[in-house]
């Protein structure tokens, strides 16, 4: 059955890890570098041959190959997202699965996120006040600007990066380990789809608890920023807590970013986890790629959502 037909029918095709491994080796072979099985001195020799023919050919081919690979991974993430949405509507999960994942993603991330966001809030407030005071010696509107910036962008976008390192790495390592130890294959043999069984609870939990963690992290950043502004720049807390610049559009935009980042971290990390091969080394590689991919997806999504928000809810 064709994959497109498979997706259009609503039932995603189950791809085994071996098939993914084969696809990966095929892709690398198409790059002209070397197959995974032949990596080593011969690979270097191939590079040397290409460099002899054209000094720019290898760079161009490498860039195109990387771009193609990135597109493939994007398609893979989107496909996984579609499958996840399908199983959210039609899947059957163990009771308590989502709660466990929410606890792992949310509650266990709180100490790390609270400390991180406290430092981030303090640094942003200090730098904002420092640079502002060099221009205008009036910090009465610093709090209003700081809160607007925090709600509209920084609480979600900056907070999502440390969250991605913790949650993304956790999801990718967990699923990747299950893949290399063939537990995922065992699930398939038990007629349990790994997307329904592994990805959906993490996806739902990540969306909900990602929003919760970023929300609380934003408040922590605000509190630490207010504290630093008061201690270092004598800004009255009442003056700092100025919500006059906040609009409903800012709240909607910030909330939308929290939801989107939570979902993106789970999907990207789960996709990297499911693509793991090569034993414990592969798990490490997948974990790294999950963190990098999650952070990158957050930056790209921030650009997209902020651009849309700039048109729909212009920052006055």
């Amino acid at each position, binding site marked *: 059955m064709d994959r497109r037909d498979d997706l259009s029918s609503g039932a995603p095709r189950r791809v085994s890890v071996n098939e993914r491994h084969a696809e990966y080796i095929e892709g690398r072979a198409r790059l002209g570098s070397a197959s995974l099985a032949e990596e080593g001195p011969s690979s270097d020799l191939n590079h040397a041959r290409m460099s002899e023919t054209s000094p720019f050919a290898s760079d161009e081919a490498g860039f195109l190959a990387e771009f193609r690979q990135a597109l493939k991974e994007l398609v893979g993430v989107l496909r996984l997202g579609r499958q996840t949405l399908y199983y959210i509507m039609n899947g059957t999960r163990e009771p*308590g699965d989502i*709660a*466990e994942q*929410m*606890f792992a993603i*949310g*509650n266990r991330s*709180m100490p790390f996120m609270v400390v991180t966001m406290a430092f981030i809030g303090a640094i942003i407030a200090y730098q904002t006040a420092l640079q502002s005071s060099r221009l*205008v010696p*009036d910090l*009465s*509107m610093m709090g*209003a600007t700081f809160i607007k910036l925090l709600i509209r962008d920084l609480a979600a976008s900056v907070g999502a990066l440390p969250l991605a390192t913790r949650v993304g790495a956790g999801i990718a390592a967990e699923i990747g380990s299950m893949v290399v130890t063939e537990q995922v294959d065992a699930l398939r043999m038990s007629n349990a789809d790994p997307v329904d069984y592994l990805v959906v609870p993490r996806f739902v939990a990540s969306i*909900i*608890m990602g*929003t*919760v963690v970023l*929300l*609380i992290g934003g*408040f922590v950043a605000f509190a630490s920023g207010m504290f630093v502004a008061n201690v270092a720049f004598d800004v009255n807390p009442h003056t700092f807590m*100025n*919500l*006059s*610049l*906040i609009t409903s559009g800012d*709240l909607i935009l910030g909330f939308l970013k929290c939801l989107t980042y939570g979902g993106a971290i789970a999907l990207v990390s789960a996709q990297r986890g499911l693509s793991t091969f090569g034993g414990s080394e592969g798990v490490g590689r997948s974990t790294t790629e999950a963190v990098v991919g999650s952070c990158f997806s957050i930056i790209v999504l921030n650009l997209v959502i902020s651009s849309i928000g700039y048109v729909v809810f212009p920052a006055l």
Partner: protein
Amino acid sequence: MSVEAKVGLLVLVALLLLGGFVFVLGGVELGDQYDLFVDFDNPGNVQPGAPVNVGSIRVGRVDSLEYRGGRLDPQTGRRPLVRVKLRIDREIQDTIHEDALFYVTSQSVLGESVIAIDPGNPEGPALEDGAVVEGVDPPRLDLALSMAYELLESLTSLFRENREELQSLLASAANLIRQADELLAENDGRLDNILANIERATEQTNTVLEGADGIVNGQQLRRTLRNVDRTLASVSSEIDPLLSGAREALSGANEALGTIGPEQREEIQSAISQAADLAEEANGAIADARAIVTHIREGRGTVGGFVMDEEIYDDVQELLRDLKHNPWKLFWRE
């Protein structure tokens, strides 16, 4: 505590934080409030939710801004461009009076725009709920900048187009100042003398003024002024009967003139013209008489000679004396 409870607690905390934030952001006021409407032509950067202050103390907020487009408001008779609705604490209602001023200002140099209220005269009546008042528009910095820009542009073009003339003018001014400086340096001693003379003249003037002051404040002047005052008082007391008499005389004359009809006026006019003719003839006769008298005085003619010539007088006197002694000479010739 179960995993579900821990997760639920965290979510609950987040929801409480979010709810509290939205509650504060929405500007929910718990106390009783009343509305005031302020008309502006240009309320500046005032936004809904902006604070309303009395003496820098927040007493309410801007609820909404309505664009009215200069339509006539029959209630106030004004044509406001923008009407701002204020929600103000009820407890200060009796301190905002009818002559209160509502103006737009900012909390700091770069701060948020707020509406400040000057409460007005405490003895005046308080503004009622829903009252519509006229606000004081903030200064239009943009207009001032635009006008300043135009002025600068004009000055720039002026300097650019008249560069040579301006350079010549500046050179002339510099030359003039230099010459004045040289003149002052050359006549330093004379200037000192002039200044000393001026000082002396000033002292003398002061002395004269002091003397004049003594005269002005002297007894004689006071007496004169008292007399003038008395005279004016008597004139003032006499002027009313005089004026009434004059008014009566004028009214009598008006009545007399009113009795004269058109026919009598023609007769009077003809009589006046006849009198004028007569006067003219009399003038002619008088001129003739004057000529005769002049003729006589000059001793011309028989009568002139008789009157003015002393010899004839002496002859006549001698003749009369002779006749008195010798009457027969009237009848007898020797």
